[in-house]
């Protein structure tokens, strides 16, 4: 059934008010931005995520987690998107947990992810566009371990992270998925330069420089030269999760806009009574429903271990990306002047959309994957 089951609906019933109350723009996103918080999110809220069991949503029950799946993670992420709640949930509890599951690193990190102490980040992109197979950061064997040299960018939460998963090349050449090795790097590594970059949505993503950073052999996640396997799991989960967050961003912006259409009067009547706006709103509503269905499909296929999961993950990320882009554009336009002011919350939706749109690959990147290119 392509709908949430009763347990999933119950989770939604818990998470929705939590995020709306505790994760709302005024006290989280706007607050941390205005005080210039270096993390871009609040550790207190992250602890609350942990207390609610959300940080362990994908961690197996035997490791103390809930042992749930992508569908459940996405239930959380849609609410995150709807409220623009800043947190390291996607990078830590979704992508990183997926990368580490079944590896030696799970024991080391799952307990502190569960407790909300660990923030984790993924260092994949090396240029301005997501292209994981193009990984070129060099890892050369050195003694019992490896030496990493190169650059990474768009490492979301990189400067706040206790753990950074780094995709590096141990064999093959840029463009090949073979020969990539994934390393678990703890913070404070020597030779690692971190520039904490503020993005348009007030989140932080680091630029990293690796100047002969030495790591032990046991920093390898999975197999040497076989890092694509854990990386692909992380990227699929991250992309599907980002699709859900984007659906939430779209739904949040749309909800605010639809309310405004009923309230705001111009020429003596609510602007929502103007047919041109009605048709645009109705079209957008349908598109958001479609994005949500596509995203749910992708999550279900991941949870089923289906061979079609990758296809639908890309469908979901591309569709949720383009739909949410339309949603935030319509939101600003329909709000008129007030929507252009920083004082109003709607602008945050446009900024956040742009960042998540790019994260784990743009709609174009994923559309090309769907088309088999």
């Amino acid at each position, binding site marked *: 059934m392509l*709908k949430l089951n009763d347990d999933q609906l119950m989770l939604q019933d818990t998470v929705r008010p939590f995020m709306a109350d505790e994760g709302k723009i005024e006290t989280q996103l706007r607050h941390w931005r205005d005080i210039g918080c270096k993390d871009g999110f609040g550790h207190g809220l992250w602890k609350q995520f942990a207390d609610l069991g959300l940080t362990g949503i994908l961690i197996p029950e035997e490791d103390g987690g809930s042992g749930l799946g992508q569908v459940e993670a996405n239930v959380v992420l849609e609410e995150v998107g709807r409220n623009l709640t800043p947190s390291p949930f996607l990078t830590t509890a979704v992508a990183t947990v997926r990368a580490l599951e079944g590896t030696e690193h799970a024991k080391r990190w799952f307990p502190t992810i569960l407790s909300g102490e660990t923030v984790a980040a993924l260092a994949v992109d090396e240029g301005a566009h997501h292209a994981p197979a193009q990984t070129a950061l060099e890892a050369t064997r050195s003694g019992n371990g490896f030496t990493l040299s190169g650059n990474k960018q768009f490492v979301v939460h990189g400067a706040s992270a206790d753990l950074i998963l780094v995709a590096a090349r141990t064999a093959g050449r840029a463009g090949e998925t073979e020969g990539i090795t994934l390393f678990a790097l703890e913070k404070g590594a020597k030779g690692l330069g971190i520039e904490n970059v503020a993005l348009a949505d007030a989140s932080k993503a680091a630029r990293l420089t690796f100047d002969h950073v030495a790591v032990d052999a046991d920093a390898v996640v999975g197999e040497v030269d076989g890092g694509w396997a854990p990386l692909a799991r992380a990227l699929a989960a991250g992309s599907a999760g980002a699709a859900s967050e984007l659906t939430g961003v779209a739904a949040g912006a749309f909800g605010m806009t639809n309310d405004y*259409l009923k309230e705001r009067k111009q020429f003596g*009547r*609510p602007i929502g009574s103007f047919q041109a706006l009605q048709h645009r709103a109705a079209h957008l509503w349908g598109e958001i429903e*479609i994005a949500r269905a596509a995203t*749910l499909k992708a999550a279900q296929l991941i949870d089923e271990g289906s061979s079609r999961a990758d296809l639908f993950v890309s469908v979901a990320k591309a569709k949720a990306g383009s739909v949410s882009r339309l949603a935030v554009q319509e939101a600003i336009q329909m709000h008129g002047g007030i929507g252009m002011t920083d004082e109003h919350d709607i602008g945050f939706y446009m900024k956040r959309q742009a960042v998540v749109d790019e994260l784990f690959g743009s709609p174009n990147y994923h559309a090309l994957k769907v088309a088999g290119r």
Partner: protein
Amino acid sequence: MPDLESFARDIRSWLEDNVPASMRTPMKSEKDICWGGRDFVFQSEDQKAWLDKAAAKGWTVPDWPKEYGGGGLGPEETKILRAEMKRMGVRTPLTSFGISMLGPALLKFGTEEQKQRFLPPIARGEIRWCQGYSEPGAGSDLAGLATRAEDKGDHYLVNGQKVWTSYADQADWIFCLVRTSKESKHGGISFLLFDMASEGVSTRPIKLISGLSPFCETFFDDVKVPKDQLVHKENEGWTVAKYLLGHEREMISGMGLGGGAGSSLMSEAIPDADPILAADLARFDVDALAFQAMSEAFIDKLKAGEAHPAEPSMMKYAGTELNKRRHELVMQGGGSDALEWESERSKGGAKPRDWLRTKGNSIEGGTSEIQLGIIAKHILQLPGA
């Protein structure tokens, strides 16, 4: 569910024993559809044999009650039957508006007598029905219809004109909206059934821009309709019509799915020299596959009784717009080859004719604008103008 499993086994073996081999091959054209009716010319012995066998089992309408010619199957059983037929490549034994439209309306609103009289001949493919809704000048404003039915004691006298009546020239009977009162727009409409062979009924096919004529204009000149052929109450036909419109919209949005809107274009040949078309196709594939997921979600919601009554409007809108876009891309991919209108090479201009035909998708069954208005009003609850 062991019962359902043995049910599936039984179906399989019955189908294997009873469906003629030629009825397990894909249909080659629209001509292979079995519509039934008084004047229907069967394409083959096998087509007739398969209809008769299916009808005898009630499987032309598997989910109708047995007493009205149906199979008496529950929803799960019906689903299994359909899935098995699809898996085995068995053709649909009978397709008709009687099955898809009038039947559900009669089952809900008909009198016991009406059900017994009309449903079994539909199930057996003996009577072919057409739908008399649209009128010239009314268009999207369906309830603005003017065909009038005067009360003449034991019968109604019907005068007026319908348009867009699908295959009216081949139908035996019509279910028809008529005006029995002018006092209120929606409240003065009645739902009548009558024989197209009645005196005073005439039809004229409408040629479409695709060159084909699946629709007719239908004229009523002093047509006498016995009063027991009124469905539901006088002046309350709009209730029946709305129920059926919902059905039609679901059917059309389903068509969007089955008819290709939900399937991707990945297999279409893309000219190497046109990366822009390749980009459009990639985006189409995303949208088509996303809509495929939406269709699945929509059906599951419908089954669970959780769909908002206005949601079929979204499905109809999105599905038909997608299908139009699909055919625009097919035309672009086809280049000047796809412009050929009559050549054998182009299968009689199948591509451009299909393309032109899709332009009607967003008009028939309620225009895209009507659907958007329904969503805005009933789901978004935006205020009236």
